[in-house]
């Protein structure tokens, strides 16, 4: 094992993941009621394959693929950051109730009739919800929280957000409003426009910057909080940036696609062994792995034969939750101590 080859090895991993994401992206543009081979997709993208191909590729499928890419990448990054901050591979935005709180924020402003679904106020409300949940969680659990305390606090926060959303559903004035609210709970990338992409993009960009900021600190945190502080890192600042970054990334995603869980848990886990478990080197691969996962999930929902399309948030939960259970089982011995 030598030090010299790190950057090159990470570079190869990142290049491989970029190719994978690129292929999935092209496949996502090609798949649907009408299958378009890659050459037709490219023609559609540059506007040379006729009006029908252009509309299918650029207006119907491109926003969907872009959102899957963006949301998946930011969720992967948010998961990697939270895990780095808390030094625990089981941490993720979903565990903290961030997506349900963001959904609650979005549902509230919609059901109160304050904004329509394409307003910029929607991501703001969703981000506020996510910010509240992650902030509340870190506040309740404290800086030195054991995993058990974090999980219990996360459960409480997401139950509260869930209850709030259920209340909005309960009080929905008509079936249409109820359906609108139910959408936030399921999470889907169907029928999105470039407008959705543009609404989410600026918030996600801010989130990405905040989440990337502390990657060197995450490496130092391997040694614990005090050692990290003694190495010159400001823990208060790190916590604030991660909370704000997770809230911005998750909130923006939920605002345009509803609640999509478990990508933030699974994506970093899949690539962690490939970067020698280094929480700093993990960041970019985790983002790419998240993008690949969500693109693949969104392709799958279009391939699985069913009467109505399965929502992508339902699929990620169906796969992610058992994955989470397996992770817990494998770490049972460490978790049994209660400390972790």
């Amino acid at each position, binding site marked *: 094992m030598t030090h010299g080859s790190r950057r090159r090895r990470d570079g190869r991993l990142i290049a491989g993941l970029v190719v994978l994401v690129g292929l999935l992206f092209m496949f996502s543009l090609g798949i649907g009621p009408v299958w378009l081979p890659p050459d037709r997709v490219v023609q559609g993208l540059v506007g040379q394959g006729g009006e029908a191909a252009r509309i299918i590729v650029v207006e119907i499928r491109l926003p969907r693929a872009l959102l899957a890419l963006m949301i998946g990448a930011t969720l992967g990054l948010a998961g990697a950051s939270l895990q780095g901050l808390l030094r625990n591979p089981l941490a993720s935005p979903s565990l903290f109730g961030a997506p349900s709180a963001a959904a609650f924020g979005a549902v509230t402003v919609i059901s109160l009739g304050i904004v329509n679904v394409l307003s910029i106020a929607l991501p703001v409300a969703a981000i506020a919800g996510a910010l509240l949940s992650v902030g509340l969680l870190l506040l309740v659990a404290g800086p030195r929280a054991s995993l058990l305390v974090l999980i219990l606090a996360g459960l409480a926060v997401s139950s509260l957000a869930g209850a709030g959303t259920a209340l909005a559903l309960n009080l929905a004035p008509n079936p249409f409003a109820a359906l609108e609210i139910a959408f936030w709970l399921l999470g889907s990338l169907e029928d999105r426009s470039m407008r959705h992409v543009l609404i989410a993009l600026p918030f996600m960009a801010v989130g990405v910057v905040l989440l990337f900021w502390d990657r060197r600190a995450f490496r130092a945190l391997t040694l614990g909080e005090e050692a990290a*502080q003694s190495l010159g890192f400001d823990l208060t600042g790190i916590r604030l940036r991660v909370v704000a970054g997770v809230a911005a990334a998750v909130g923006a995603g939920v605002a345009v696609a509803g609640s999509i869980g478990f990508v933030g848990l699974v994506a970093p886990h899949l690539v962690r062994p490939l970067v020698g478990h280094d929480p700093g080197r993990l960041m970019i691969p985790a983002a790419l792995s998240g993008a690949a996962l969500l693109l693949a999930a969104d392709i799958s929902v279009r391939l699985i034969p069913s009467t109505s399309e399965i929502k992508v948030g339902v699929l990620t939960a169906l796969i992610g939750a058992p994955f989470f259970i397996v992770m817990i089982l494998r770490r049972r011995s460490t978790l049994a101590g209660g400390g972790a």
Partner: protein
Amino acid sequence: MSAEAPVLATTGLSVSLGGRAILKDIAMKARHGEFLVVIGPNGAGKTTLLKALAGLLDASGEVLLGGRSLALIARRQRALLLGYLPQGHEFHWPLSVLDVVGLGRLPRGAGADLSEEDRNAVARAMEETGVSGFAGRTVTTLSGGERARVALARVLATEADLILADEPTASLDPRYQLVVLDILKRHAARGAVVAVLHDLGLAARYADRLLILDEGRVVAAGPPREVLTAERLATTFGVRAEILERDGATVVIPKSVI
């Protein structure tokens, strides 16, 4: 800065945690080339003192590092001047030993790839602590003695003159206790070391000076043979002890509880 200026000094250092006064008006200093050992009964405030010296918690009073107020030294700069070895030697991710020791270079701007200077410092620290032989092993699979040395190597790799070590020998077998203290003693000769120890015998043998804390106050400070008296051990630790001089070293034998 004159040669006699202490590497580290405090005046009126007080710390309260959760409304309780843990440290009260501490005045102490560590000189260049000195191995200062902090002893005291459980709950005396030893760990809190070390954290305050490292600037890890809010304290009133003043900590002077090389004659400059610690509060006015930027975090990054502080990390270059003092290395802090916390209790317990925790490693949260299964990194390789080489990677963990390399983390000591973070204050010098190191990334995942180390510069030649960084690599040399890491190699020296690993050589000094005898962990070079398992550089590629995963740190979470090591034994207690190996982990303690890896944690110490990480601090040495920082190349800070001053090392603050909190119970560096806890849970180590007799051989590794000596190994770790020998390393710290060598480092102290080049810079300075402040260490918290529980073993009075080892403290007496290795310390150039002892600082005895009790209920948040300094009750004695000086060379072991001056401060380790039977009366002191009785009042501070509540033990009857026999104190012998052997080959020029002070030997403490705790006999019974008072």
